[in-house]
């Protein structure tokens, strides 16, 4: 029963917060893992962990509307998503799927309707999760992306400085030199996988800087993020072993508690606070004792790590895929490099690295001729809104000088609009400026490998061959 579980989560959070002063956070999470294991043995799991085995997805036109299930985590990988969402936009723009592996949910697929839901935080709650499924039982961390105002506003404002434009001005040169280093190290004239070598590497370095995380351990940030966003129960991803996620959470708690205490000690010794995330949290009255609220502490760090990881990474890869599908655009870009900022928006629209955000109706709401009942899950499919032909002309085409590219929904709209949008744009702009300086041809050789997820729209393998400028 959801209410019972919710109560259990609440009690659990309170117990954890109350004991956090005496028990180290990573020990608490290890304790939780044991507790959850025992609870499952005694009462059975709250719900079975879904396991996803890939099979060929049928042509959407052979299905009855009610059987269309866009939560299928292979829809993107099998390149069926455009046809599925087009049918929903045209025939059932507010669509109910009652039997998905994640439970029943509504899909909102037109630009205008998504905008309405995203803006209406009084009608649709972002709590307790913004992903379609549930996180591993017992790991219901709290993050401000999944909080409603006013609590959301307080927490967001305490951390947004880390990616505020003022901070970014300081970072631009650092980002440029790192991007240059990575690009200069790439093999020429032979295929290599762009994803780990460029996209993951650059986003990992950025994350380490934002968090002032030990640089040589930055791969950990990427691994935590990948597993957290890739949980089978949450997004249909490939990670079904929930035990590992508890270990990750404990590991994360340990690393970040250590980082927090170190900074606290350095500040107490008179060191000037930095512009990294933890220093900012410690400088703000509302969050300076965040470490005593472990589920919130872990939650908000997770949010910033996941938020800065899959998104930018897959836009870095997606831009290359787009350029190769629409090769005339590269010629256009070479002739007019000043199009880069607009092209960056177009890449983010075309790729839509996160497919959706979820809400829960706070009351009965009429939308698109349907009645969404209080308590129903509502998924705003940004990936569909960005391809809505009612809003964008030739929406499936990648057009770097598209006039309204900036109107894309990939950052969401309303109070939860992406906080790191300017940083993401900056990273992508610099990447393309530096690419143009160095390479004449960037060919994608072979079909890209796409990840299994209904949430992350990304690439695990993208084989690329570079020809330097002569």
């Amino acid at each position, binding site marked *: 029963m959801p209410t019972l579980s919710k109560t259990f989560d609440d009690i659990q959070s309170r117990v954890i917060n109350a004991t956090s002063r005496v028990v180290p956070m990573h020990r608490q999470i290890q304790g939780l893992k044991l507790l959850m294991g025992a609870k499952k043995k005694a009462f059975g799991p709250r719900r079975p962990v879904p396991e996803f085995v890939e099979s060929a997805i049928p042509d959407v036109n052979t299905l009855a509307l009610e059987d269309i299930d866009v939560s299928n985590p292979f829809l993107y990988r099998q390149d069926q998503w455009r046809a599925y969402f087009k049918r929903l936009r045209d025939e059932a723009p507010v669509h109910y799927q009652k039997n998905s592996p994640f439970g029943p949910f509504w899909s909102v697929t037109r630009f205008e309707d998504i905008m309405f839901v995203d*803006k209406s935080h009084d009608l649709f709650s972002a709590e307790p999760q913004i992903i379609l499924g549930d996180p591993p039982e017992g790991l219901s961390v709290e993050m401000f992306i999944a909080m409603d105002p006013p609590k959301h506003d307080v927490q967001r404002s305490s951390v947004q*400085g880390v990616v505020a434009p*003022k901070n970014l001005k300081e970072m631009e040169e650092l980002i440029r030199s790192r991007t240059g280093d990575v690009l200069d190290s790439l093999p020429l004239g032979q295929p290599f996988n762009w994803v780990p070598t460029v996209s993951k590497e650059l986003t990992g370095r950025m994350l380490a800087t934002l968090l002032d995380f030990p640089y040589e351990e930055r791969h950990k940030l990427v691994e935590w993020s990948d597993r957290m966003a890739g949980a089978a129960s949450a997004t249909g991803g490939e990670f079904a072993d929930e035990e590992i996620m508890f270990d990750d959470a404990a590991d994360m708690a340990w690393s970040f508690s250590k980082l927090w205490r170190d900074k606290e000690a350095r500040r107490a010794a008179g060191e000037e606070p930095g512009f990294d995330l933890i220093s900012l949290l410690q400088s703000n009255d509302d969050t300076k004792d965040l470490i005593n609220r472990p589920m919130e502490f872990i939650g908000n760090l997770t949010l910033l790590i996941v938020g800065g990881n899959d998104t930018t990474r897959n836009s870095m890869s997606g831009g290359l895929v787009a350029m190769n599908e629409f090769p005339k655009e590269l010629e256009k870009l070479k002739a007019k490099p000043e199009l880069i900022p607009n092209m960056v928006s177009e890449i983010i629209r075309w790729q839509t690295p996160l497919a959706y955000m979820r809400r829960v109706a706070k009351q009965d709401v009429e939308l698109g001729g349907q009645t969404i009942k209080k308590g129903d899950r509502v998924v705003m499919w940004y990936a569909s809104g960005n391809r809505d032909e009612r809003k964008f002309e030739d929406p499936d085409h990648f057009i770097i000088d598209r006039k309204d590219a900036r109107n894309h929904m990939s950052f969401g*709209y309303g109070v939860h609009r992406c906080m790191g949008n300017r940083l993401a744009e900056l990273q992508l702009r610099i990447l393309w400026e530096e690419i143009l300086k160095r390479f004449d041809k960037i060919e994608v050789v072979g079909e890209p490998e796409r990840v299994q997820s209904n949430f992350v729209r990304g690439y695990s393998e993208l084989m690329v061959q570079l020809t330097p400028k002569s």
Partner: protein
Amino acid sequence: MGKITFIEHDQTEHVAEFKAGSSVMQIAVDNLIPGIDGDCGGECACGTCHVIVSDDWFRKTGTPGGEEEQMLSMTPERASTSRLGCQVVITDEMDGMTVHLPEFQM
């Protein structure tokens, strides 16, 4: 018809003509004024058309509504006369108005 002056953060001035009924954001976008993005197209949903109205004119533009207030509260450059350009509908009374642009749109 009337005129409105946009002053960028580096003090560059841009004068644009307007017809009553348009919004400050729309006028800026139509005239390619740098420093105003208007990403959501006028839905009060992105906060990228932030302007700071000169004190003398703030009485004419009025104060922000609830939704607008919420979006403005997320920008660090919030000032006491901040408005979202998309929510300020221009009237003939605003002929000659001056608005300042923040250093960044969030």
